């Protein structure tokens, strides 16, 4: 990674992606923010990317298929016992 302060849009987007997973370093985030000052396109990308992360966070958790199956199996057994 270069130590230049000015980075390309490509690199800015890469840092932005890493930020979504809290994997960007402080120095990278500084460079990203400097880039965002003068680059409208990347501001837009960063905004949408952050919003996307938020949406993923709000996505309701669901049971995976295999544990749902085993739940159903255990439940059917219990149901048969009741009747």
């Amino acid at each position, binding site marked *: 990674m270069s130590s230049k302060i000015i980075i390309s849009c490509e690199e800015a*987007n*890469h840092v932005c*992606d*890493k930020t*979504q*997973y809290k*994997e960007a370093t402080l120095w990278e985030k500084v460079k990203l923010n400097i880039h965002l000052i003068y680059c409208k396109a990347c501001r837009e990308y960063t905004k*949408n*990317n952050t*919003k*996307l*992360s938020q*949406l*993923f966070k*709000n*996505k*309701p*958790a*669901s*049971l995976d298929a295999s*544990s*749902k199956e085993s*739940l*159903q199996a*255990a*439940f059917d057994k*219990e*149901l048969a016992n*009741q009747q």
Partner: protein
Amino acid sequence: MPKHVIDPNQWIKLYSDYLFNYTITRVNDSEKAKDLVQDTFFAGLKSMKNFKGEASERTWLISILKRKIIDHYRKINSNKGKAEVRISYSGDESEGDWLEERVADPFDKTAEDTLENTELGYAIDNCLEKLPAKQAQVLEMKTILNYETEAICNELDITASNLWVIIHRARTAMASCLEKNWF
């Protein structure tokens, strides 16, 4: 208002995701949450005859689940010798001995929130399906299952920079897919 009927054959299909999601936001341990959901269904089965049809099945199951979650925390806390507040109460709908059961749940979602999040869930799944298989797989591992970058790279035999390129393409595609309704 029509009386609600109870039909346990449909429970798992209709409510397991909802109950699981409700539990996971409160106990933060997916194995424990699965156990609690299963306990709830079993307890519901046992006390089916007490179902009066005043509330929907789902509401009724949630009220059982709430007690299971409280019991779960009480079990953890009893090891620490923490004081508990015991106050008897009785009312139209319920009675019991523990103050916690009467306390409003600050995490309780309003109906609207729940509906919106359910729709969001469908929308995200729908857009994930439209992505190329590899992108969907990587994005899901990284974003929903929260795997470490290194773990994904090892499992799929790709380099870290491959991974970030795939993630970037997937995120861009997801954003434009969800754009119409969610941005």
